[in-house]
């Protein structure tokens, strides 16, 4: 889906901030208009001084006016500044909240379209660009009004000079405008290069152990250097192009001053124009040409915002165009939102799940699962097995909606499941991934992830996942901070913590992707026993270990993404060559010695 026009997104953001955007436009408008006053006051000063005009307060009255203006403007800055901070924050917080919400809602196992480092780069930099552009948008309107008023005042002072000076300036501005069209291209390239650098840094810092163990530190830094150098080249090009455009427009002030001097020379000599008028022309020329220059910069910024919105939209790909800036609760005041979804009436308990024709192929490789049929009965253990790349994990993920299935249907107690992703969530289903993630928080928070803290539920889940001894051995027990990605626990502990997290959800259907890979045989056997002891629980698991296969009520053998065979272990060993091959290998576990 294509992104919507940038202006519409900006309007959505402004509308969301409500009164703050009005206050911002108003205060900064007043602020801009107040900058016209010194010019007028100074003209009166020069005219009073040279006697070209008589003023009631004389020059001292004018000085008093200047003092009052200075103090008023200082006060205005503080108020307008506060409004600006809140206004800008609300607008960018909205985008970030929506991005996060959308990313949380996408099929969880579908890889993010960009690396984590790059995704964060977009969360940070592209949202900042959008925020800047929004802020600038109402200010540029205010500045336009100021420039118009300044133009009108000059027109009233001397129409001839005004038109003669501003005519050429408008032409130059138009030329500069056309030159600036090239900027967007440089901008996109430099911002992509910046993302590549962030992405490479993220990779590097995630894989520190791998890099160090291989002694590849220098080469990894050299890789970063290449990307850095590319970013430098592209960014310098981008900045230079911007600066050249600025120079063309900023030139206008100096050229304009020269033109005014040329045209005003005669009239100053014969007294048709006062010194005050000349000073006013020189000061206000700045307003008009600065506006032209600002407008050019603003347009460049606007193009940058279009690039940024495009990149942000790339993060949430299939969402509707308006989703990025759609109103959303930010909870900046008052009660925080509930950490757990609102309790819904307990759904109809699982009797059976029937899958037919389920298909998903990974876009990059074309591999996956094709036309998988499967049926799960309440209280049973179904084990999916097969070689690497046979599609075991893909089957689990597609069933749970963590990958978007291409075709096939899933029925829960006979009723068609329209949206597996929304449907197969706790309390219907819970899942332990193959490489589960824990987060930098306490073990307790990692197990709960927002569930109400019920000690009985937690204790039962910990026991069921064979984690009880580990918790007892930890100095801080459940309050142990597990570190970034759970690194302070062993691989097996992370896996069992993830299993406990799954059990704590109290789901009807529990889906386990190879919980055994970091467990010793004894621990794994006890784990399966404890899992099976939980009454009424239905399990779907990937494994190739005898302890799991032996306990299974049903085994599904996958080969190249299709169901090769399905049945009890005894039946499969008798009928399936693939099962026998897998079993023979697995059997070696015990036979070797």
């Amino acid at each position, binding site marked *: 889906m294509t992104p919507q026009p940038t202006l519409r997104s900006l309007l959505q953001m402004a509308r969301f901030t409500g009164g703050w955007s009005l206050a911002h436009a108003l205060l900064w408008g007043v602020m801009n208009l107040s900058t016209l006053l010194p010019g007028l006051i100074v003209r009166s000063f020069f005219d009073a*001084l*040279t006697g070209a005009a008589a003023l009631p307060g004389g020059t001292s009255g004018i*000085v008093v006016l200047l*003092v009052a203006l200075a103090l008023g403007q200082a006060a205005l800055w503080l108020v307008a500044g506060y409004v600006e*901070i809140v206004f800008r*924050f609300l607008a960018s917080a909205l985008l970030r909240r929506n991005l996060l919400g959308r990313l949380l809602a996408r*099929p969880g196992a579908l*890889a*993010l379209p960009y*690396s*984590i480092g*790059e*995704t*964060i780069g977009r969360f940070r930099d592209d949202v900042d660009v959008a925020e800047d552009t929004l802020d600038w948008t109402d200010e540029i309107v205010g500045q336009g009004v100021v420039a118009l008023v300044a133009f009108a005042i000059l027109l009233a002072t001397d129409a001839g000079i005004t038109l003669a000076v501003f005519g050429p300036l408008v032409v130059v501005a138009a030329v500069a405008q056309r030159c600036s069209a090239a900027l967007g291209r440089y901008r996109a390239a430099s911002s992509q290069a910046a993302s590549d650098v962030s992405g490479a*840094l993220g*990779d590097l*810092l995630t*894989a*520190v*152990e791998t890099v160090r*163990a*291989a002694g590849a530190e220098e080469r990894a830094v050299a*890789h970063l250097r290449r990307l*850095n150098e590319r970013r*430098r080249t592209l960014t310098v090009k981008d900045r230079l192009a911007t600066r050249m455009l600025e120079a063309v427009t900023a*030139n206008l002030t*100096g*050229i304009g001053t*020269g033109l005014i*001097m*040329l045209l005003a020379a005669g009239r100053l000599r014969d007294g048709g124009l006062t*010194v005050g008028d000349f*000073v006013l022309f020189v000061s206000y020329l700045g307003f008009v040409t600065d506006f032209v220059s600002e407008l050019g910069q603003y347009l460049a910024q606007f193009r940058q915002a279009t690039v940024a919105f495009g990149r942000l939209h790339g993060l949430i790909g299939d969402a509707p165009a308006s989703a990025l800036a759609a109103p959303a609760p*930010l909870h900046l005041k008052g009660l925080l939102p509930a950490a*757990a979804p609102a309790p819904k009436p307990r759904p109809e308990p699982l009797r059976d799940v029937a899958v037919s024709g389920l298909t998903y192929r990974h*876009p990059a490789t074309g591999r996956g699962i094709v036309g998988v049929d499967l049926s799960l009965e309440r209280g049973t253990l179904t084990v999916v097995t097969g070689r*690497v*790349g046979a599609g075991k994990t893909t089957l689990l993920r597609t069933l749970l909606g963590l990958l978007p299935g291409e075709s096939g249907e899933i029925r829960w107690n006979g009723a068609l499941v329209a949206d597996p992703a929304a449907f197969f969530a706790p309390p219907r*289903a819970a899942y*332990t991934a193959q*490489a589960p*993630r824990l987060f*930098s928080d306490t073990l307790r928070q990692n197990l709960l*992830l*927002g569930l109400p803290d019920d000690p009985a539920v937690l204790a039962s889940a910990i026991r069921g996942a064979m984690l009880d001894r*580990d918790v007892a051995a930890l100095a801080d027990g459940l309050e142990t901070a597990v570190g*970034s990605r759970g690194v302070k626990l062993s*691989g097996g502990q992370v896996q069992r913590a*993830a299993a406990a997290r799954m059990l704590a*959800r109290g789901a009807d259907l529990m889906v386990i992707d190879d919980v055994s*890979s*970091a*467990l*010793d045989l004894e621990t794994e056997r006890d784990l399966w026993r404890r899992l099976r002891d939980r009454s009424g629980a239905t399990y779907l698991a990937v494994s190739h270990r005898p302890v799991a296969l032996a306990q299974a009520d049903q085994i599904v053998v996958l080969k190249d993404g299709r169901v090769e065979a399905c049945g009890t272990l005894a039946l499969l060993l008798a009928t399936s060559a693939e099962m026998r091959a897998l079993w023979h*290998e*697995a059997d070696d*576990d*015990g036979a*070797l*010695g």
Partner: protein
Amino acid sequence: MSAPTPPHRLNWRVPVRYLRPYRRQVLLLAAILAATIAVQLAAPLVASRFIDQATGGGPMETLVALAALTVALALLGQGIAVAETWVAERISWGATNALREDLAAHLLRLDAAFHHAHTPGELIERVDGDVGTLARFFSRFAVYVVGNAVLMVGVLGLLYAIDWRVGLGLTLFVATALATMLRLRVVATPFSAAERQAAADAYGFLGEYLAGLEDIRASGAGAFVLRRWAELTRRWLAAKIGAQMRGYSMVASSQGLFGLGMAFALALSAVLYRDGSLTIGAVFLVFRYAEMLRQPTEQIRNEVQDLQQAGASFGRIEGLLARQPHLTDGPGDRLPPGPLAVDLDGVWFGYQPGTPVLRGVTLHLPPHRVLGIVGRTGSGKTTLTRLLPRFYDPDAGVVCLGGVDLRTVSLAAVRSRLGLVTQEAQLFNASVRHNLTLFDDEVPDDRLVDVLESVGMGEWLRALPLGLDTTLGAGGGLSAGQTQVLACARLLLRDPDVVILDEPSSRLDPVTERLVHGALGRLLAGRTGIVVAHRLSTFAFADDILVLERGEVIEHGPRLDLAATPGSHYAAMLRLAAGDAAEVAR
């Protein structure tokens, strides 16, 4: 991350060190700046002469010449501005890229314990975010702060030349304005550090939770993540208001002070004009120069906001660079050549004081032998393997390779001889080639192809659209098993003397595992090896077996002997595994 000292004062060590290679360009930049300033100062002088000439009835030719001069100065000034941008940006990116690379290299040197305490997202914010602030600082500091300071001095000097009273009065105003703003800056710096920290917290959170989307989704924890995000957002806003209101109070004070300064300049000029000390052109010049004082001061002030951020960034970067790895290179630069023996003698180690993970582990593994380590999860197997590449030093006892204490040789000497395959392999968002060689371009393609073939990934490679140049990484479509196979291939390429396999095949099915094991078997042949695994089949290569329990060695001996000793722990494990299989086959 907290810097060791609060970054109140700007520390110049970092910028000076990184600008040094650019001395010539910095000088060129200074020359360009001087030219810019001369042009800026000349323009009002021309206009002042023009007013006096025009009001005094001067010749028309002079007036036209002065007008033309104004236009010429404008064109010249803007040409210089473009050159200035080019030079300044090149210096800035060159210097900060060097800093980025040094920081990344430094982070790679820091201890494992450091990386456990800091998320990658947080560190990206340091290396890229903080350094980005510095980039702006480098490119603008010269132009805006130094350039404007010189401009300011020039303007004040010319004001003294017009009339010393005007010069003195405006000098006082500028001094007051600068003193006020610098004072405000000192007050504001900790607030801007807090703002950056709030941002770093938010992005650190994002990085971590976005990497676990599957877990969040499957645990129904979306609402939980949004709640945590709302908490972080709240704190972020509070920190933003705290920092930026201080910025705005600087703007307000400069606005007020310069308004008063202009009122003073005009009042004084009026008096001096009336007593004949100043011409009307000179009054105009005072007015223009007083105005010109405001712009550089305000630009310095704007940069002071950046300077604050830069101050905070310098503080954090200094803090990061000052962190020394506890593990430092020993004096030696090499280990004995050829296969190495591995020795641990009375090794105690714990991640936190008071909770030892390894308790007095002693083992001797002669060269050419392979040791299998077994034990329940949490018994210290993985920890033991992390002592060999010297990711950690033991709290007590000695770890030796080839009879040499690891602490007496350089880390590079140790790691160049070791190969480690971990439980969870990491891929880079880079080409297949770079993922295999870890960015070493010297390795010939046919070796890469051979190695991939030998681990059974040949077919996979041929199916890739760009072969070895295909980009892997996020969304690359590799299963955990395939990723692990690639990690094994990485190791095969490096051909180390000691090989450590920490559950290299825990995610592989038996068929694939066998394929990888074929390759690993060839690799282990003639080398010293340590294999940690849960699956007993992985120990087919092991000559010796060591059983760990709660950090202590409870059994150690030749594998076949242990298997044949009915009372051994290892034999009991074999029976357990065999029993399972038998139970099933029944």
